[in-house]
């Protein structure tokens, strides 16, 4: 594996080709917050909490560190003004969707006491951890995404879920919003046929 040198928050980090910035940072003990990331799953790049500022050849960009591959000579800033602004706004947008749980403490860390926004539903941040876990690890595909845009949702598939979910329930622990929690509610999750 080819070795790649890059700079993260002032530290020189020796990473391997094929790693993402997030993996390299974690390897070097540098903290970058995440929500939709799980080491066991393919990176998803949806929550954008892991956004970092990178500079290469005097060009600066903002990228999601969980999907951006390491490059020789990259200079990464994980805590710049722009990055903090983004993180704070992402948390402020998500907080009404999941008022209790891991997001609450993370929000406070970024100086966010309460959100200026309101939401109609308060149990799902659409991080996709349940869907991806079920697809990639359990290979059951019992829960999936439906719809798009602001109507995007997560739904248990009536053809599969009743047969497998009750005896599995492994995705419960991953859920930051609290939606996939109550076992009696699995069958009551919106069925696509109801729409």
């Amino acid at each position, binding site marked *: 594996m080819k070795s790649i040198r890059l700079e993260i928050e002032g530290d020189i980090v020796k990473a391997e080709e094929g790693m993402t910035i997030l993996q390299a940072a974690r390897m070097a003990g540098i903290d970058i917050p995440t929500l939709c990331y799980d080491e066991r799953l393919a990176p998803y790049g949806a929550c954008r909490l892991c956004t970092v500022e990178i500079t290469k050849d005097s060009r600066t960009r903002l990228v999601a560190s969980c999907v951006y591959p390491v490059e020789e000579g990259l200079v990464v800033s994980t805590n710049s003004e722009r990055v903090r602004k983004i993180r704070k706004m992402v948390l402020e947008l998500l907080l009404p969707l999941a008022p209790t749980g891991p997001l609450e403490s993370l929000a406070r860390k970024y100086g966010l006491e309460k959100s200026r926004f309101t939401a109609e539903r308060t149990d799902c941040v659409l991080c996709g951890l349940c869907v991806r876990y079920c*697809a990639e690890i359990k290979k059951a595909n019992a829960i*999936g995404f*439906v719809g798009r845009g602001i109507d995007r949702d997560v739904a248990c598939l009536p053809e*599969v879920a009743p047969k497998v979910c009750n005896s599995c329930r492994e995705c419960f622990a991953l859920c930051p919003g609290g939606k996939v929690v109550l076992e009696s509610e699995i069958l009551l999750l919106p*069925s696509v046929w109801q729409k």
Partner: protein
Amino acid sequence: MGKERSKSKFVGLRVSEEQSQVLSRLQQNSNLSKSGILLRGLELLSEYYSLGLDQPPLNLELRNLEAEAMRHAQALRQIRKRGEAIGQMVQELSNVDKIIDKHQANKSTLIQILLDIQAQNHWLPKPALTWVSERLGVSWSEIYHIATFYKAFSLTPRGRHTVQACLGTACQVRGAPRLLEKVMDVLKIKPGETDHDQRFTLTTVNCLGCCALGPVIVVDGEYYSKSTVKELERIAAACE
């Protein structure tokens, strides 16, 4: 069931006089509503023939129940004899089979296959999707995501007549929202909905490319420009 002489209506569904009496008796002897009886009957049939109808969600209102019963019944085209239902199901599945073969049963043509099924049936019936899932080896979550992501697909039967209202920017600027309101008043449904009799499905579309006629609606492929309420009523009345 004897020969049907006269037609009756049971929750808006056309049934023979004898069938209506049987259904009414069943309803009186249970504590289900009229539409509840129909739904229960369809469930039993579906379990028997694995037509794949869902468990009804627990919190549906009566109106939704009626609509659902109508939809399923219409889609199965008024089950009268068991054999007919099976025959029809076999025909529908073999049609789907032909579509899949036309695209060489290739996973990458999933969206094209679904488009053809939608065009043929005016919706995506569950048995058809089950067959696609099995033959192509794609998961239900993939199919459902695609079916709910794209506007071209409908998981419930669509009306016999399609009414599309253009909401492209040019039509918008020329008063499309007001025209849409008039259409909604005449058809009594909202965009994305089908009426109870399954006559009309109303959808909105972004730019049909005839901006000079804006605001435009298209009914079964016929274009109408700047329609008044009277004109809309006339157009609707002409659609059976």
